[in-house]
């Protein structure tokens, strides 16, 4: 090959690189064979307490839900996972049609009219929604409710900062809501697990000409009213709970849906249905003029690669569970969480901090520091709730899903009661 190129060594092909910086030394560990690598990583992984060995009552945006085996078998098909962005539609109908199914399914769930193919995670979806609201209303201020996941507010702040868009934090009474806000961002159920008056928020936001952006728990939407029914404008969510493992927080999936009238302001890829030259139905990436490769500095976002394989997992999950299954999962979460909350609320020294209706997460005030509670739980191979002491004294955010059994919950209550 070198002969055909006309050089005598591969290094000659690097002639444009300044010589003193070519072939420098790299201090990296020596290579491992497959056997050695597997052993090395197995050891690394065993130094983590994983949720197959530990019972989990921790949520706060990342959830341990049941993942049917069928999902892994489909996402594990290499035609799906070794493909890339479906630029050549004729050889990417698998990817494109699943995106179309995904877009349809999440719209059914959120009550919105259109969806994109997904974004990085729930928090960046919320951030991009805020920027989209600014474009639509031609305003440059955003408001976020204090009951939104603080990690999400941080991310929205990072993005808003980039655009020099001030981010106002407002309380649920909305006293501080400016009349020149582009959007009001709320979470339902909120970070503390309970439901707020979305209808009132929609009303107040629209009164000042702002869009209502709702961050939802997608599993809750099988039991509770969708934000679409409350007049929301943009609905986003973290899709990890729909068929993907917690994976130390990533990869996740930013579900992004909105009203049809805002379709051309949506960031991200979108798949659309069309026909080919023979009249056969097929799918293509469409409305590409919103995106960076065409609009460049005037694009709706710089996003390119997103979370396609996670979206595929979500699609298979929703198809596998279907209407009844998802409802059943939601009910299991609801009843188990309420069973746990009731029992804990009755323990001496413990109390439920909020009285509003909740879904699968609730805040509990403890008689001792939550850190101490969690240490005791961990010894018994249980992961306790998120320590909220910084925000609410001596409190933790507990989460119960369909994977927690009655025995798990009873054990939790028993240990808490002994403290």
């Amino acid at each position, binding site marked *: 090959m070198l002969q055909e190129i006309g050089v005598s060594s591969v290094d000659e092909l690097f002639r444009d690189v300044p010589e003193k910086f070519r072939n420098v030394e790299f201090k990296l560990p020596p290579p491992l064979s497959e056997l050695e690598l597997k052993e090395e990583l197995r050891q690394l992984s065993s130094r983590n307490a994983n949720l197959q060995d530990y019972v989990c009552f921790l949520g706060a945006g990342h959830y341990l839900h049941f993942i049917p085996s069928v999902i892994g078998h489909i996402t594990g098909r290499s035609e799906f996972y070794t493909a*890339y962005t479906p630029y050549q539609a004729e050889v990417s109908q698998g990817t494109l*049609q699943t995106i179309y199914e995904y877009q349809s399914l999440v719209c059914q769930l959120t009550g919105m009219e259109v969806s994109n193919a997904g974004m990085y995670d729930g928090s960046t979806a919320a951030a991009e929604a805020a920027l989209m609201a600014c474009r639509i209303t031609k305003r440059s201020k955003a408001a976020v409710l204090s009951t939104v996941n603080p990690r999400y507010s941080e991310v929205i702040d990072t993005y808003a900062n980039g655009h020099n868009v001030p981010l106002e934090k407002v309380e649920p009474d909305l006293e501080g809501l400016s009349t020149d806000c582009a959007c009001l961002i709320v979470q339902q159920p909120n970070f503390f697990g309970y439901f707020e008056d979305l209808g009132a928020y929609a009303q107040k936001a629209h009164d000042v000409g702002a869009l209502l952006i709702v961050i939802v728990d997608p599993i809750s939407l*099988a039991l509770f009213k969708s934000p679409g029914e409350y007049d929301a404008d943009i609905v986003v969510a973290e899709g990890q709970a729909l068929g993907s493992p917690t994976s130390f927080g990533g990869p996740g999936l930013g579900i992004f849906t909105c009203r049809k009238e805002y379709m051309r302001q949506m960031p991200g890829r979108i798949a659309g249905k069309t026909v080919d030259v023979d009249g056969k139905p097929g799918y293509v990436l469409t409305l590409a003029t919103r995106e960076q490769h065409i609009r460049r500095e005037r694009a709706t976002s710089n996003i390119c690669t997103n979370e396609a394989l996670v979206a595929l997992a979500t699609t298979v999950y929703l198809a596998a569970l279907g209407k009844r299954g998802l409802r059943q999962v939601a009910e299991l979460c609801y009843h188990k969480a309420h069973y746990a909350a009731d029992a804990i609320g009755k323990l001496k020294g413990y109390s439920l901090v909020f009285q509003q*209706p909740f879904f699968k997460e609730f805040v509990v005030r403890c008689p001792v520091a939550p850190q101490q509670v969690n240490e005791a739980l961990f010894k018994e191979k249980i992961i306790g709730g998120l320590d909220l002491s910084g925000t609410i004294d001596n409190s933790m955010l507990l989460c119960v899903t369909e994977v927690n059994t009655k025995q798990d919950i009873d054990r939790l209550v028993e240990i808490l009661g002994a403290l």
Partner: protein
Amino acid sequence: MGHHYLLPDISRPGKIGCSLPALDVAPSDLPPEELLRQELELPEVSEVELVRYFTALSKLNYGVDTGFYPLGSCTMKYNPKWHEDVAKLPGFTSIHPYQPIDSVQGALQLMFELQEYLAEITGMSATSLAPMAGAQGELASILMVKAYYQARGDTMRRRILVPDSAHGTNPATAAMCGFEISAVPSDSEGNLDLKAFEPMMNEEVATLTLTLPTTLGLFDPQILEISQLIHERGGLLCGDGANLNSLLGKVKFGDLGFDCIQLNLHKTFSTPHGGGGPGSGPVCVKSNLTDFLPSPLVRKNGKEYTLTSPTKSIGSLGAAYGNFGVMVKAYAYIRSLGAEGLKEVSENAVLNANYLKEKLKAYYHLPYDRTCMHEVVFSGKRQKARGVHTVDIAKRLIDYGFHPPTVYFPLVVDEALMTEPNETESKETLDAYIDAMKEIAREADENPEILHTAPHNTPVRRLDEVTAARKPDLRWEMGNQKTKD
């Protein structure tokens, strides 16, 4: 054909594709009626139907495991299966980001070591693994540049320079950070036009975002002059590391004068592309920018690993720590290859691209006839004279069993065909591709019609993108949706 129906078409009431346990606790009262959903319409299918449906769909796809995939700048290299398997270990998949820190020391160790390896590979001081894709890594870079100048009280720097050959994410990112953008022309060699660049690089410019090698697949030999000029005038040099596959294990970006660079683990470091993600876009910086890195960083104290936030961090880019599941695969890749192995990657990538260049330049116009790096950009200009466009060439390649190269990018080349063979392809595969391209060149001369009507052998043929954009059909609907008008 399994793909002409959709889930609602095979949905039947009462079917379900999984099994769930019964409720094992006494049920509680449901919340008030006005909170509850009346109707959720989702398809109902059995597991076997679901498996057949998605299996049929997968067969309509072309991936790296199907065949040669020379999509330029995407680095579609082979993904070793053992890296897939180690990433599936429960100790990596089934851990929660907020569980006690001492219960995830293995994960943090992996991240810490990956931070170190990437810094070493790029010749930088520090790494943040937080960005979840290349574009988000670019965002981090530009936000850091912005924060850097704000911290110095320098309010003049409101402009970012971007070569005219730049990927669209570069100007899009600059705009997301409130900067004005100016394009710097390329010269006739495909390098940055230094004469045009020099007067543009003034005290209003925060940074030049440079992909190296460029999107033309060319290494700009003026790089040291460029970085020197920028630094002399108080600016920063940001790297877009999309093309790192050409320099892996051989050259350090830090040595060339870059202040920061974002990487694509799903390109250079062989984590799978997923049909469009998940990716991972870590950013590496020199010491002048370490304080501004996006949170969190993993720090090592003795034998313990913790998460920290740099003092002047630009903030968080996601709800957790980045795409950990992708990091595991990149870590495995680096541990599998070592320094020597990484060097072989770039050498073979560059060798393969130059081989393609030499063998095809007689058949396709080569805008820059010089040594290329890991990718080569041809132009379909010669065939255009016969009324055959690059899109036709690409579609005809599909008939020959190959995924086409990137087309119509970079914009500075008319009818561009950006071809990146990768190091994981054998000479036999490259020769087969060369033969197909030669055939197509001949067909363009003798039988252009067959290219205009290509592809012929695919499940669907050329699709009507115009109607798709005029009358968007973005979803099916089931049941009565209670959305307000």
